[in-house]
Every structure is written in C-alpha cells, then in structure tokens.
C-alpha cells in the first residue's frame, strides 16, 4: 500500500465541531435581527440608516486597521457595529455614528490586539465615548417618539421624553407598551420582546450563559422593587418597569454576555451579572445620568480579570477548599 502525499499529524482530538468564530458571530447577528427589525418598524428609515452606517464603518475600520481586504472577516466587527447602532437614539446625526463606530473598533478593540484581547466591550466603549462627547445628542431629555410602521417619517422631528429621564411620567406608558417597545428610547433597546426572542435563540445555540442576563435582570428587578421609586401602585410593577425600560434588556442579553469581556467561570458570570445590575441601579437612582447600563457593564468588564481569578471552579472530585 502506498500513501500518496504526506499525512497530517496533529495532537488529538482529530475531529472538531464545525462551529467557528464566524458562525458564532453570525448567530449573534441573527439573534439581533428581531430587535433591528423592530427598530426599523418603530423609528423608520433613520434607524435603518444608522445601522447600515454603523456596521459599514465598523467593518471598514477593522479591515483598514488589519490591512486585510476581507471586510466581513470573522463577523465580530459587524456585531459591534450593529450593537452600537441599536444603542443609539434614532435621531443622531450621521457623523456621530461614524465617530462612534470607528472609535468602538479602534479604541475599544484593535489597540488591544483585536478580537479576543479587548478588555472592554467595544460597542459600549464607542457608546460611552459618544455619551461623554455629545451628551446632548445621546442622553438628553428629548428623544424621538416611535411611529410604528411609518418608514418614511423623520425621527428628528417628533420628540418625547425617555421613560428613564422622568420615571414619574412613565405611567403614561403601559408596561405592555414598553414590553413591545412602543416608547421613546434607543433604537434597539425599547422592544423587550424582540430582545428576548433573540436571547432565547442565543441560549438555544449555547452561545450565552443564562447566569449573566439572569443575574443582571434579577438584580435590577429586585432593586427596582425595593428602591425603584414606587411610582407604580404595585412595587413589583416598578421592578418590572426598571427591567423593560432603558437598556437593561439589550445590555443584559447582548452586551454583558459578550464572550471576550466577561468572566469564563460559571460563578464569575453570576457575579458579573449581579454587579452589572447593582451598578446600573446605583447610577439610575442616584446618579445624574438617567441610564447606567453602559457604564455598569464597562466597569464590570474592568474587574473581569479579577473575578476570573477568584472564581476558579472546583474540579471534579476535588476536595472543597483544598490547599
């Protein structure tokens, strides 16, 4: 018997799952589709424009930095771009999207060496930079109101107050309305329903760990019930309000679960989720900013290495607290 050519020799295992970084990222994009769709339905063409610009700039920035012509590459830049777009208000000017998307990729990711090495969630770095730079556009009291199914309407014209800027007024929106997403807010954050659908897809595909969103949303709910301001007759309603209002849902399901910037240990992920919830509520209730999800997740990203070091799981058959 003759073997033509040479054999490949490698370490075991010799079979690999077909899953790749790219396929994971595509799954995340699929998961974000309902939210993106809702954004377009609610906020019209401006939403679509923002998303297209953000994704295009993100992919372009990454391709240029890496000097590769493969624009889509592993898809992570597209995910970053889309996430950033979904975390922007509908009426932001185009140049703001460009700056945000480019800084997300460059300052949030590439300076650390690219995918896998970034410490902070790139999309949130981009968003935080925008919030700090152009607070008026990003976190003012004036937000475009949604106009369901009016694709051609210009979001910049009609405005309303975000529910978080003045929670007392929130009662004007019913919780079901908030759940569906028919309220003023950032593009992708208003529809808890669409976000949940995508979230279930990610859990089904095994890409996210329920502990992070669970810990995050659970903490926000409990703190909302206890300290939420009690502007609903039922304090549990207040808790729910804090969960569906603002960026908690999108943050908990898509941003706090970003692989690269969150702990790898199960216990660490729970701590991470709870920490995000705590800081979010701290900022919401006592800070001057109406919303704290972005900063909460960034802060927890920063302590992720420390969490990882303190939550090394007990090995199978290991004695608890062994030397």
């Amino acid at each position, binding site marked *: 018997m003759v073997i033509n050519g*040479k*054999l*490949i*020799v*490698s*370490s075991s295992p010799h079979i690999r799952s077909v899953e790749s970084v790219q396929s994971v990222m595509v799954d995340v994009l699929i998961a974000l589709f309902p939210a993106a769709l809702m954004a377009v339905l609610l906020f019209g063409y401006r939403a679509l424009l923002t998303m297209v610009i953000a994704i295009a700039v993100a992919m372009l920035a990454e391709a240029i930095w890496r000097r590769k012509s493969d624009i889509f590459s592993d898809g992570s830049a597209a995910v970053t771009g889309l996430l950033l777009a979904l975390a922007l208000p509908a009426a932001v000017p185009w140049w703001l999207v460009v700056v945000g998307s480019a800084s997300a990729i460059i300052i949030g990711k590439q300076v650390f060496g690219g995918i896998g090495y970034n410490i902070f969630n790139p999309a949130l770095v981009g968003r935080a930079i925008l919030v700090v730079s152009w607070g008026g556009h990003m976190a003012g009291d004036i937000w475009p109101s949604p106009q369901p199914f009016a694709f051609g309407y210009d979001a910049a014209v009609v405005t309303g107050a975000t529910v978080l800027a003045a929670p007392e007024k929130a009662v004007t929106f019913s919780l079901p309305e908030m759940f569906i997403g028919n309220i003023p807010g950032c593009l992708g954050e208003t529809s808890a329903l669409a976000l949940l659908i995508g979230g279930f897809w990610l859990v089904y595909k095994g890409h996210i760990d329920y502990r992070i969103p669970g810990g995050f949303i659970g903490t926000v709910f409990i703190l909302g019930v206890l300290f939420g301001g009690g502007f609903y007759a039922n304090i549990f309603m207040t808790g729910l309000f804090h969960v569906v209002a603002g960026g908690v849902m999108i943050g908990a399901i898509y941003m706090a679960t970003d692989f690269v910037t969150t702990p790898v240990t199960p216990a660490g992920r729970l701590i991470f989720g709870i920490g995000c919830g705590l800081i979010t509520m701290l900022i919401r209730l006592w800070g001057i900013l109406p919303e704290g999800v972005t900063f909460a997740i960034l802060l927890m990203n920063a302590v992720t290495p420390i969490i990882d070091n303190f939550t090394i799981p007990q090995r199978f058959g290991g004695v608890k607290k062994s030397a």
Partner: protein
Amino acid sequence: MQIIYAIIALGLIGLVFGILLSLAAKVFAVKVDPRVDKVKDSLPGANCGACGYAGCSQFAEAVVRGEVNPSGCIPGGTETAKALAAELGIDFAETEPLVATVFCIGDNEKAADRFIYEGVKNCAVAGRFYGGFKACTYGCLGLGDCARACPFEAIEIGPHGLPVVDQEACTGCGLCVNACPRDLIKTLPRRSNQGHLVLCSSHDRGKSVSKVCSVGCIACRACVKICPQEAIEMDDKLAVIDIDKCDDCGKCVPVCPPVTIYPRTAIPKKLADIEHPAAAASEDGS
C-alpha cells in the same frame, strides 16, 4: 520677623525629623548586602517606580542578584546605567562580545518533510511529535522558538523557514541557544567575524543525511583531509571547524560535496539579506 519665624519653623521641623530619622536608623538598623547599598547610591533615589520595582532599593537588589539589566533605571538614563555597570563592572568587562549563529541551512527546499504537522507552532512541541516533521531529526523546524526567546528581536524566521540572526541587534546573550530544542544555535565570538563553519548539525550517517537533506554534512571527511591548518575534526559523523585555528584559506569549501561549508562573512547579517549563505557570499565581511 517673618523670615526668622520661617527659618526657625523649618529648622525645627528639620531638626525633629532629623533626630527621629537618625535615631530610627540606629535603633532599627538592619544589615544589607554592601553591594546593594553601593548600587543604591549610584541610583537617582527618586523611588519613582518606573523600573517596575517597588523602589530604588528593590531595584538595586534585583540588579545585584542579576535579575535585571542596570539600564532598567529610567530616570537615571544612560549615565546611571554606566555607573551601575561600573559598580558591578568586572563581569561585564571580561566577557567577549558574542553573536548567535544557526548551524543548519536545510531550509524548506533543501530539507524534506516527513509529514505535515498541524498544531501548536512551537519547535519544542513539534519536535516531540514523532521526532518532528522534518525528515532530518537534527534539522531546524523553523517554528521560531529562538525568535520568541530573543529579547532584542534579533532573530526572525526568514522566507525559507530558517531563522536569520540580525547580527547588529544580537547581543550574544544566549537565550536562543537554550530555546532551540535541537541545539542548532551557538554563540561565537564576534571578533572580526572570521573563520569558516560547517553549517549542519546532523550526526546521522552520510547516507541517511543525503536522503533527507541536500545540504547536510555527509561525513565524507574531504574537508578534514584538505585543511592545511588541521582545524577540522569529525565529531560523531559531523565535521566541525575550530574557528580559532581556521585561517580562512577556503580550501574546504570547494571539496564539500553538499556545499555545507561557508565563511562566516557569508552568513546573512539581517533578514534583508534574504538569500541564505550562497547568495550573500559575495558580500565583504567587516
């Protein structure tokens, strides 16, 4: 009056602390390696932490222990580095400048592969896999353990899969020598870069060498016989030239059937001289 107050106040504060300090120094005296103190004295004493150590004395201890290069003190700059080197001087001065040299020229084209290796790109690891993917079990695997070990970025794997030493950047520290799992790198005295070398490390029999590599030493002894200086000896089926005896007559070069012998001047001096020995041979040595 103001001035007098100022002088008195400052003087008093100085006095109190001076007394306290000198008392503390006496009462709480601890013995320290005198060399550490000497080194410490040569340091700026700014305790700025720029060196990565907790303070000047920690840095001094590290320098004395040989953990860190004297040039590690950033505020002190070159002046301090020189002073420190003088302080510990003796060991530095005596060593002859060395340069790393790779003893294998079996590149991707000249030395055959046995199988395709897939996995961790690391010579030490790949070499353990069935004796390495190169058919020659002595030859360079070209996965760059030496390049990674070099703190001066003086080694890079060239286009043909062999490491090239940037002779200007190389300090002869020898880290690559230890890093190479196949012991292909030796540090040689820089001097005038003179002498010829047999650029092969295979101790296999000639027949098996020629099967796996077109430029390996086949232990034919032709060079040993022709060398007028008797500078070449056989070491377990491998010709080795003693560069101390070699007078660069070059008589061994034409008699070597696989063309394994080269003058040291022909070894590429940096990655830019891409072509390995043969092409660079025309370059003059300096």
